[in-house]
């Protein structure tokens, strides 16, 4: 059974996202971290697979044959999702230094020529600087869930969660607490996972 991505032969193992990346093709995947199971929240990894548009991060490669990351429709929809994502972050907040993956959102927006002002901005503005090693600035957070999954699933700590629902959803330590007042061990996994500068090392510790 053969799998091609944009005409390039690719291994039909793991997810379609694995296959796309193995073929050397770039594709945004803002809520997928190498170390974590698919979350399916950001919806920026859409590809056209055998005529259907699917999220590559959560589609098994073995079930498809022809995958296209390019194409008018799939690119338009990916750009649309990215433009909605851009409306979550305040202008300029993506230029701040951050963790090892902090540039992922900015790169995805640039590669899709996404308009940053397509939709009226709706940003959240809380900050939390109570941790000695890192700080959290909500104005750059896109609610991808990587930090929460890293804390809960990878480290088995559970210091942070996604509190609230709908437009009121926010990354929250403890039961509406601060990082300092939570059971956070300062392991830094959340900072390492974040695709924006929302969770960033304090200046003294910045890479």
């Amino acid at each position, binding site marked *: 059974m053969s799998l091609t991505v944009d005409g390039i032969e690719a291994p039909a193992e793991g997810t379609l996202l694995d296959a796309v990346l193995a073929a050397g093709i770039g594709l945004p995947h803002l809520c997928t971290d190498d170390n974590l199971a698919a979350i399916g929240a950001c*919806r920026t990894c859409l590809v056209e697979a055998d005529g259907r548009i699917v999220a590559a991060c959560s589609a098994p490669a073995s079930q498809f044959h022809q995958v296209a990351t390019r194409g008018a429709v799939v690119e338009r*929809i990916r750009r*649309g999702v990215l433009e909605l994502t851009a409306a979550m972050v305040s202008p300029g907040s993506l230029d701040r230094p951050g963790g090892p993956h902090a540039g992922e959102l900015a790169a995805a927006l640039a590669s899709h020529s996404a308009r940053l002002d397509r939709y009226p901005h709706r940003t959240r503005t809380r900050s939390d600087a109570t941790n000695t090693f890192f700080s959290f600035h909500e104005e750059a957070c896109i609610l991808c869930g990587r930090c929460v999954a890293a804390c809960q699933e990878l480290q088995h700590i*559970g210091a942070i*969660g996604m509190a609230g629902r709908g437009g009121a959803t926010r990354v*929250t*330590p403890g039961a509406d607490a601060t990082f300092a007042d939570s*059971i956070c061990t300062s392991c830094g996994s959340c900072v390492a996972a974040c695709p924006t500068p929302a969770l960033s090392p304090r200046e003294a510790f910045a890479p």
Partner: protein
Amino acid sequence: MDLPSAARSGLLPALVEAHTRCGAIDASEAGRIAAGLRMPAALAWEAASSFPDFERETARGAEPVCVGPACLAAGAIAGPGQVAVECQHRCFEAPAAGEDAPFPESAIRLAGPLLAPEDTDWRGLDAARASGRDGVLAGLERSGLRGRGGAYFPVASKWSAALARERPLALVVNAEEGEPGVYKDRALLCRRPRRFVEGLAIAIEALAPAVTVIFLNGRAQGAMESMRSALESHGDILPAAPRVVRGGGGYVLGEETTMLNAIEGRKPVPRVRPPFPVESGLWGMPTVVNNVETIASLAVIFREGAAAFRARGTAAAPGTRLLSVSGAVARPGVYEVEMGVTIARVLEMAGGPAARPIVAALAGGPSGGFLPESTFGTPLLPGQLHATGAALGAGGLLFLDSPAAVRKTALYLAEFNAAESCGKCTPCREGAPRAHEMLASGNKAGLEDLLEVMAVASLCGLGQMAPGPIRSALHFWPELFA
């Protein structure tokens, strides 16, 4: 069998208990509950803060007034000393006020085999027992029963897929019924609970689940009491008492993986698929999730035989199904109709217009769409009834008698979907509120692009189908939103 991960699955029951005892659950209460269950506070809080009912005080003094779609169309507004609440699932007596009340027999307007008076023997169950697991699966296959929750997946295929894993499996009954305008599961549980229990016994007989959970809407108190008493009086036909879990509200809770997360004590948001619940669902077990009406249909199928079941409805969609008919008709209520009946026929059965002529029907609620009177020849079948959104879904039909009511309902549904977005995925969380704003302001430039993004890119059905009411209203009544 002992439930795995017992501490965490104690969370939702503990939250429901705390809410009943002391009203709205705040962060400190969630923290105390977490400590009691020895789980991290963040995990308890992310779940607790995601159920809309827990944010509210349990009504003290103020009388609840429903402002759901049927009551809104009937002119409901909350006056002094009253509090506006979401659909109370009593659309058959709109405008509805007061607490949840048991579903009245008088609102069963048309009964078929599902809503016929209850039986006094267990012939359906006896027949299923006599034919064994393979016989039940074969009978189910012959009947062609498709899930009545709204997705219409063939029930025999779902069961076979779960059984094929050859691992201990879970059976979850979806009794959440949180869709505004739908109240037929409440009708079954309140008026024909014995039929539901017989269907449940048949499902348990065939699936031999290691765990059986009934997930019941947190506000459906009448249905709860009726079901509990039926489970108690007929407990002898069930090998073990099913675990009953109450929810804390939220339309997305009806989405099956969200429900599984809620039962496990996790934040109620959808999971990615695959894995599908039949592969890995509740606590990773192969899981069958069936709606109340689907379960009750089992009793009918094994009592009457698959051929008799098939004799009603169409070849591709056999049997009868329950419609929740509301709005400007003479006799709103539950109608048991054959699949494939036209909307015009339903309108006729419901006694026609209550006063003014009907101009539109909303089919499928917030995940469906509007149809103009000129299309009422459309048969009610699984899948979309119109490309702009209308769908049979869970069988909710709201009849409207003016273009103004169409506009009001469309705006209500756009706002409802925005409010009910769970917040997990970007297209729905960010898109739905903006789509509502664009529709309300009449500034529709780029709206169709946005609706396309929501429909194609959203993670679950809520976001994927939220464009339906907007698209259909704009398609048939563009002048209302200029």
